């Protein structure tokens, strides 16, 4: 056996070495080309266009080889990019959601592209210049005089309405004084149409929704922009979400939800939405939706049965009729645009090459090449090709000419979208863009669920955004700290302390100090001493220092006193309460359930049944399954869609039919996300079983014999003997379990796809909060302070547990 292990290890090492050697050879034989790393894009089997554009670039620039990586689920994962930039291993180009650019720019994380443009605009016709782009889109990529990305696409929102449904409901619509041949143009019309088109079942659940205010892609931004609302003052120093324009817009959304029986009712309805042919808009479950141009191609490909017309999204009544404060308004209809940009991160190793690539990929020539080669592929697969709206004006004009001349509903939709581009507004450029977005989403949820009035919800959001703004704006107030000083002092002090302590020990130690043994002893424990100093003590000291600073690694540190702690307890109190509540939920339900499951299995196995080895293996295997694989496996089993998820498919043919209870949405809904985690944990409860089994075997059988002679029933024996005897083990498990739950991270990160919060913050955990602040925003100071808070809580909980323990934990005193 031993020999085999050795052989296997040797073979593995040899193989590892072999692969290394091979890689080295590969790179040695290749031509010396600059490798340009691009993050945030990848080529799938359906994207021919992008690939052809990249190949064309490589053909024109034979010295460059492009390497693309998606890095992270969905869009560019901010944590990964930030860590790479801070860690000096940044990619050369990133494709970044445009509205976050100002955030990155304010941290000094991206390179200003204006100098490149100024240098090349007269010599290179491919150079992007402001005149070629829609003004608002260009503005979105700018921050404080710099340009931090070249816009690549622009999605905007228009109203899709199901005209067939309108016709079918013509009588009812006419009865309500509405014209069934045209879509609503104003907010009050929208509500009126929605009221007629919405159908409720007798039990109050939705059968059809006329219009769901925040389904599709409108958010509060669209309605606010339509109402001439703004989120920030022009000087970007103040968040003004509470202005009445925004409040009215939010009120409109709330009213829209009221027609549907409240947001909860709408969400229940939305939970049953499917994709493809059964797309809720395509099959008439929703009559009107405001969404972006990406839906055109999706409808054409997956929901060919969808019948729709498009129109600009309805606007406030006053705006439409040019009354009141809109009396002098020029534009009737308004939309908002988002999209992406290509940027160069600070620390990119090949900035010139990156700029060459950006110039090429944003040019009209490359856009049209991409479209034509994508169109060719799509058509060969029997699909309709619809280009995505671009940020480049001339490109859009060419698209209209080439791809949107026909009369089909898809082409008409593209025309509507492109036609609205000049009237598109963008989200405000602020370094708090991400927070602003997150908080505005939270405000929508709070108000639409009726948990707060629109005014209060906006006020709360505004406060939090303003906090972040202030933090940055007030930065100047705090003194810059040169970190080298404290670090030198800390290291020096630690070393001096150690030396002094050793000296003192040698001098005043016990009388019989054997010097050779002492030397050997220190040598033996030296790995720990070094490790302790470098990886524990040093970081601890640093962490204490950081807790009083504002430091994001890229910029200088500033001393802020106790402000980090104030932020934790005062400003983020709500989120923290939620996070610790989540932990408490998991602990109070998950730990006992896990204990009971493990113990139950162990009790069954302890009855001398045959085949214990088999059972033990079967119950134990799940607990050694790698956590990442476990989470993905369970996410697949608990997939909410009953035609995919194993669990819900069984549920749909049993519980649904018998009791008419719909299968839950598991990790996708607030109420079930934590139970999902507990469920996953229970699957691994077999790990504890081994421990219980050992504990049970350790209980002396004389105790049971004595008890049976006294006539104690098995139940009495269990509570009178087994449990007290196991109590030290239970105690150990509870303590370790609590510490473990407080540090939950991997499963939440994976389950939420890296957003770390879960539906309505239901999966927010202390460590995920810390991770986000530490590695996503690099608020080193705040995160360090927060780490100490977690530590303190662990200490307090453990202390309480040890205090309470003597009341229920039974130790065999004479045993030890």
């Amino acid at each position, binding site marked *: 056996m031993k020999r085999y292990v050795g052989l296997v290890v040797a073979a593995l090492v040899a193989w590892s070495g072999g692969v290394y050697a091979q890689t080295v050879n590969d790179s040695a034989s290749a031509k010396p080309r600059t490798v340009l790393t691009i993050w945030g894009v990848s080529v799938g089997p359906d994207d021919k266009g992008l690939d052809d554009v990249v190949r064309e670039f490589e053909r024109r620039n034979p010295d460059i080889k492009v390497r693309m990586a998606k890095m992270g689920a969905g869009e560019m994962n901010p944590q990964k990019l930030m860590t790479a930039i801070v860690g000096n291993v940044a990619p050369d180009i990133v494709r970044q959601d445009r509205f976050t650019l100002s955030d990155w720019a304010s941290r000094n994380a991206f390179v200003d592209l204006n100098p490149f443009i100024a240098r090349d605009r007269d010599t290179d016709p491919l150079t992007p210049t402001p005149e070629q782009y829609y003004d608002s889109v260009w503005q979105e990529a700018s921050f404080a005089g710099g340009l931090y990305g070249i816009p690549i696409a622009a999605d905007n929102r228009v109203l899709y309405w199901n005209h067939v449904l309108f016709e079918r409901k013509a009588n009812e619509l006419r009865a309500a004084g509405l014209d069934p041949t045209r879509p609503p143009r104003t907010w009050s019309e929208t509500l009126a149409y929605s009221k007629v088109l919405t159908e409720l079942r007798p039990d109050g659940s939705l059968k059809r929704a006329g219009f769901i205010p925040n389904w599709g892609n409108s958010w509060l931004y669209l309605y606010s922009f339509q109402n001439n609302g703004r989120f920030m003052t022009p000087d970007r120093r103040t968040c003004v979400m509470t202005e009445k324009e925004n409040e009215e817009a939010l009120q409109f959304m709330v009213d829209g939800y009221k027609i549907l029986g409240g947001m909860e009712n709408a969400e229940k309805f939305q939970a049953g939405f499917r994709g493809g042919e059964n797309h809720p808009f395509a099959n008439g479950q929703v009559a009107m939706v405001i969404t972006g141009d990406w839906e055109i191609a999706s409808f054409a490909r997956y929901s060919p049965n969808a019948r729709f017309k498009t129109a600009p999204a309805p606007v406030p009544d006053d705006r439409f009729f040019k009354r009141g404060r809109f009396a002098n308004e020029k534009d009737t209809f308004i939309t908002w645009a988002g999209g992406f940009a290509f940027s160069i991160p600070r620390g990119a190793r090949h900035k010139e090459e990156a700029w060459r690539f950006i110039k090429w990929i944003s040019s009209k020539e490359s856009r049209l090449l991409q479209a034509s080669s994508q169109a060719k592929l799509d058509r060969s697969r029997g699909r309709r090709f619809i280009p995505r709206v671009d940020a480049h004006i001339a490109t859009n004009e060419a698209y209209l000419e080439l791809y949107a001349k026909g009369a089909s509903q898809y082409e008409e939709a593209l025309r509507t979208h492109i036609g609205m581009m000049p009237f598109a507004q963008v989200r405000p450029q602020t370094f708090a863009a991400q927070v602003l977005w997150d908080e505005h989403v939270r405000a929508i949820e709070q108000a639409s669920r009726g948990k707060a009035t629109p005014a209060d919800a906006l006020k709360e959001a505004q406060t939090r955004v303003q906090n972040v703004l202030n933090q940055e704006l007030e930065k100047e107030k705090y003194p810059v700290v040169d970190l080298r000083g404290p670090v030198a002092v800390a290291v020096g002090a630690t070393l001096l302390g150690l030396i002094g302590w050793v000296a003192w020990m040698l001098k005043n130690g016990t009388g019989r100090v054997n010097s050779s043994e002492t030397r050997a002893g220190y040598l033996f424990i030296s*790995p720990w001493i070094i490790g302790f100093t470098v990886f524990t003590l040093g970081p601890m000291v640093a962490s204490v220092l950081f807790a009083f600073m504002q430091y994001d690694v890229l910029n200088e540190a500033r001393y802020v006193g106790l402000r980090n702690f104030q932020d934790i307890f005062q400003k983020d109190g709500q989120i923290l309460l939620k996070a610790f509540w989540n932990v408490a939920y998991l602990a109070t339900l998950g730990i006992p359930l896990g204990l009971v499951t493990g113990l139950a299995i162990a009790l069954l196995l302890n009855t001398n049944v045959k085949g214990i080895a088999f059972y033990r293996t079967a119950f134990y295997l799940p607990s050694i399954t790698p956590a990442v*694989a476990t989470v993905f496996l369970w996410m697949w089993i608990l997939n909410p869609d009953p035609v995919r998820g194993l669990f819900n498919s069984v549920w749909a043919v049993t519980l649904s039919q018998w009791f008419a209870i719909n299968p839950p949405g598991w990790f996708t809904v607030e109420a079930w996300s934590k139970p999902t985690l507990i469920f996953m944990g229970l699957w691994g409860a077999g790990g504890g079983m081994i421990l219980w089994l050992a504990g049970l075997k350790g209980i002396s059988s004389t105790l049971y014999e004595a008890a049976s002679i006294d006539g104690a029933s098995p139940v009495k024996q269990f509570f009178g003997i087994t449990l007290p005897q196991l109590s030290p083990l239970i105690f150990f498990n509870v303590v370790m379990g609590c510490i473990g739950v407080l540090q939950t991270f991997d499963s939440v990160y994976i389950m939420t796809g890296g957003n770390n919060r879960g539906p309505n913050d239901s999966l927010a955990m202390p460590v995920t909060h810390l991770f986000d602040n530490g590695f996503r925003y690099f608020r080193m100071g705040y995160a360090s302070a927060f780490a100490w808070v977690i530590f303190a809580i662990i200490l307090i909980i453990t202390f309480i547990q040890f205090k309470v323990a003597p009341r229920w934990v039974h130790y065999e005193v004479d045993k030890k």
Partner: protein
Amino acid sequence: MDASVLFLIGTLALWVGGYQVLRGSFLALRAFLIEPDFARQAVLNKSALAAGSGAGLMLLSLIIPKDLGRKVEATQWIPLVWIYTPIAGWMILISAFMVVAKLIQWRTALTPSEATEKLKQIGVWAVIGFLGFVWLQHMKWEIQILRGALPFNPTGLIAFVALALATVWLMVMADRFVRSRGAATKLATHAVLLVGCFIFGVPFAWMLSTSFKEERDIANADGLVWVPKVQFTHPFDDPERPYVEAIYDGRPVRALVDSDLGDGRLLLDIERPFALRGRRFEAREQDTKKLLRDQFVWETELNGKPVVAFTVRDQEDGSRLLRVLNEVPLTGAVQAEAGQEFTRKPEEVEPHRRTGLRWENYTDAMEWMPLEANYGLRYLQNTLTLVIMSVIGTVISCALVAYGFSRLRFPGRNQLFSVMLATMMLPGAVTMLPSFLIFRQLGWIDTLLPLWVPAFFAGAFNVFLLRQFFSTIPMELEEAARIDGCSYWRTFWQVMLPQVKPALAAISIWTFMGAWNNFMGPLIYISSPENMPLAYALQLFSGDRGGDAQLMMAFATMTVMPVVLLFFFAQRYFIEGVQLSGLGGR
């Protein structure tokens, strides 16, 4: 009588009767297997009583109108489930059971006469069973699981509760009547354990099943698919679109010839590996090698007759050009229309499939991985590097430190040891950020170093465990070695270390698991595909191909398998490891 009353009585009778028959059977088994001769008759009597009354009750259940359960219509119902089968079904069940029981008795008979007696009885029961079989055959196997229901209103609720209570009460009464001692408990234990194993095993089974399925079976509205099926393929060379093997950027690829550029140059359109799919490049014709392409086989109809045909090529308008196969795969049936070509839209054809495993999901998943990952081998290699280095580091450093703390006396030992114990309380969160900055200063970001180097500096928990172990070794052993002139190092290496091997094995295993599963570390430190270990790569893979459950599950299986294999080979150490670490805190 009212149908619902009949329904209630019938359900009750079936439940209790079924229970009694089962109990009677257990009793009979027990009487023959366990009870001594003198007690056998009494138990047998009880058994007969239980089984007889049970069978009678079950017969009573036949009064239930057969399809009542499916006719009821209302919104809310309390479900009641029972099995409906004519007497023939019960005849087969009971006789089968009796045959087995008699067989056992026959084998364990004490006297030859008893044995012949039993053989006769087996014959009788077999005949009864056969008759039941014929009868059931005649009735076309009319066994049904019927779903009945009670209306969900106060009356219905009360009826249901009464029914449940009555059942429990009757069962308890019956239990008192015929009390069993050991066998039933054991059987029940096994039953519960098996159900538990099933529940714990289903996720694995589902993972494996999914990883072998075709994409079209991933979602199914008519109930999920457990048994994977694969579509037949037919190797074919389309002269209009030749399929070739070529070298692209130093890698072998398979590609379709897009067009002939003249002077022996071809424009190739890469098909596989998937990571390169869609890329086009020029190659000289002499550098390419022609291949047959595995084309899918479909069922469709031609001139009103069903035929089996394979794809010749996908056409520009989205339709498929098909050609009828000479023979139907597997059955070998010759087709009259062989060789005919015709066009069908994708929705007009059905895949021709057989039950089987789609192993290609595994290779597909590997092909989808980024090129830098070298079909995922690079991930495996990184994980192995991580695991091997961590285990080596942990074992060496912890053993050294634990030995130092447990067996050597030096000033400050106890204080240092308490400091070490105190660090066990410190959550990783506190040191996470500064550690990142330290590794950044060292230039170790995006390398594996930050993930395994700390292992060489002795973790507190492992040291603590090992120290407990060292402490149990008698001092005499060490002193003897010392007297023989061993240095501290040699005493440690040759005398003490072999004594703690089990603990070292346990620690190695935990370190192995920890390193294999490490997710947060790579998440923070690694950003290039060529440096990623498996666990993190799986998470990133889900971003790219998360929608393809079969690929996800194939990748997950590949991540899980090595650990499971290790567990099977080193199960003992795993279990000892748990006990050590858990009981160590005692």
